[in-house]
């Protein structure tokens, strides 16, 4: 037993150096060299100011912007407190939330059923995307708030929609931050 004690301690320290220092340092070096934009969080910078990250959802509440999904991260889109609601499928709280958001959304667009992603929180609370259906649903509100033709808004949605990756992977999606920036670029 004692003969294995020294290897146990020295080995743990050596592995710490190898996999805890050298390995992350090598990955950091290669990452910063090859993909600096990605390695630093895919940040969007405008006039020297960080506006956000294209990968991290941020909140929009004004009528002239597309709204993201409800968020359970902190007080909403808190990118230091990611997480979901963890409400169970038969939760009264969940059903009440779905009901109230759905009712509010129906007031702006009464004819169409609300896409499920607009009334549910994501797993991370930082989902940068909404479904094309959810963008479509909000289009009339955007068009009237910005006094744009509905067709123009739809074109922007179509241009921002990402199809399944490599044609098969994942689901079609619309990045809310990129779509809203495209909207602002039109009005400017």
């Amino acid at each position, binding site marked *: 037993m004692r003969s*294995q*004690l*020294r*290897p146990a301690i020295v080995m*743990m320290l*050596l592995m*710490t150096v*190898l996999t*805890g*220092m050298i*390995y*992350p340092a090598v*990955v950091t070096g290669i*990452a910063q060299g090859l993909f600096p934009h*990605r*390695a*630093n*969080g*895919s*940040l969007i910078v405008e006039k020297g100011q*960080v*506006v956000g990250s294209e990968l*991290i959802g*941020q909140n*929009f509440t*004004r009528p002239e912007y597309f709204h993201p*999904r409800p968020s359970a991260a902190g007080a909403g889109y808190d990118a*230091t*407190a*990611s*997480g*979901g*609601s963890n*409400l169970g*499928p*038969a939760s*009264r709280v969940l059903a009440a939330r779905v009901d109230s958001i*759905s*009712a509010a959304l129906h007031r702006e667009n009464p004819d169409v*059923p*609300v*896409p*499920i*992603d607009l*009334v*549910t*929180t*994501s*797993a*991370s609370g*930082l*989902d940068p995307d909404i*479904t*094309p*259906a*959810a963008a479509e649903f909000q289009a009339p509100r955007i068009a009237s708030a910005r006094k744009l033709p509905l067709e123009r808004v739809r074109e922007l949605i179509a241009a921002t929609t990402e199809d*399944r990756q490599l044609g098969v*992977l*994942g689901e*079609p999606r619309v990045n809310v931050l990129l779509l809203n920036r495209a909207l602002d670029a039109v009005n400017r």
Partner: protein
Amino acid sequence: MTGNGILQILLFFGLILLVTRPLGNYMADVFNGGKTFLDRIIGPVERLIYRLCGVDPEQEQHWTTYTVAMILFNVAGMFLLYGLQRLQHLLPFNPGALGAPTADLSFNTAVSFVTNTNWQAYSGESTLGYAVQMLGLTVQNFVSAATGIAIAIALTRGFARHSANTLGNFWVDMVRATLRVLLPVSLLLAIVLVWQGVPQNLSPYTRATTVEGTVQTIAQGPVASQEAIKMFGTNGGGFFNANSAHPYENPTPLTNMLEMVALFAIAAGLTYTFGSMVGNTRQGWTLFAVMSLLFFMGIGLAYPSETNVHPAVAGAGVDITASDRQAGGNMEGKEVRFGIANSALFATVTTDASCGAVNSMHDSFTPLGGMVPLINMELGEVIFGGVGAGMYGILLFAILTVFIAGLMVGRTPEYLGKKIEAREMKMTVLAIVLILPLSILGFTALAAIHPDGIKGPLNAGPHGFSEILYAYVSATANNGSAFAGLSANTPFYNLTIGLAMLIGRFLFIIPAMAVAGSLVRKKVVPPSPGTFPTTGPLWVGLLAGVILIVGGLTFFPALSLGPIVEHLLMNAGKLF
């Protein structure tokens, strides 16, 4: 369910089929001490490590020495990780100036990462600085996985060798698993992840002024290096609280697919390594087939279940139909880029393998969708399983199955030419029939009546019970995923869950090593016409059946109090 969803599931399985043989072959070479293409770079490093540790790589170990070495190494890791956390406020690379976690939380996390469980009672971005994430967690991600692989290889040698006394050298197996298997593949995956958007930096959290003018602080860090080994090592401990659902851990559908493949790859490869080392690759493919069968049963239930929601939700004027404009279904706790198919698939895969990374919140799954992860873990994490752990787990089930088959026909059971006798059976039954259920059901029962336990669940009704049950299943099975509504960062839960993780890991490994030690001494019995064949469809059905029946009989009562009754009540329109 959509055609595309089914296609993605089949594509995932196709990729696993594709990597199993090359990876398995490579690992067989590595652990047989043969020549591999990385010898020139890694050989000198290994020799230096052995010299500094005072290990003679040529000297093989008896099963007891092998086990003692493994335990001492893990204990050293536990102390180191506990110490690093408690001294966090003194360490560099802590831009958020995060303080030291409490003693009970640090104990829980140290046990969690050393046992390859990666249960997280803390939330990553607000609790641990970069130093602890790298020096503590990333290191344990490597060496706990390497420990699992080493044990699986030792047990494999127990079958492969005969009339011998030793099972290899723990230090050599562990070092080879780390340097020649885990490090190279993780390095590759980490770079691909960065290319797709996973950050890798040591900068402080970014302060952004959003389009609407509010301030958003964005947590980042050395994510990619930890993410890669988190998947390959079936660890599952996220850099961030939201784990692989966080867009920085899993930014695109491609990273999602690669993470799932990484999660199964080594465990799948080890089935081939096993077949190759015992001299009959069909034996390995047979185990692969059993695992695949159980995998498809899981996803076959989880995927359709997640296309449903509670009648009260469906009746609230929302659209849950799948189309090319939306994934539809139960999107609570799921990300748009993954939709239903990839969330159900990830949940199945991560609980088949004892990984525990999540790309969706299992707590918000439908009752039956959430029961699949529970069942997967309750079966002992043998559906590919944790790296190494799945292999030694299913081998114990194979021993149990030949024993039961032997009883039916009245012959002494054999597996791979080794007679299975009283000692092996005692150890097997101890590990899979006694210790696992005792830990899971015992702790669940305790938490369900103890005042500190009852305070835990977020949800009311049967789902609250499921949250408690899930915690102890996940801990004992060394999975680490959670019904995360449970408030688990309390002394009661940190302590009991910590114990469940220790029991599930070491009280499983020690009997498995005892079996290996007793098998390696046996002579090989030449196959006779009466030998029960352990390849082919009959054996696949029998082994899968035994796994399901043992798991089913043991846990059905608990499941019926949780997800099953919840399913019935939900369809009757009941809310809690």
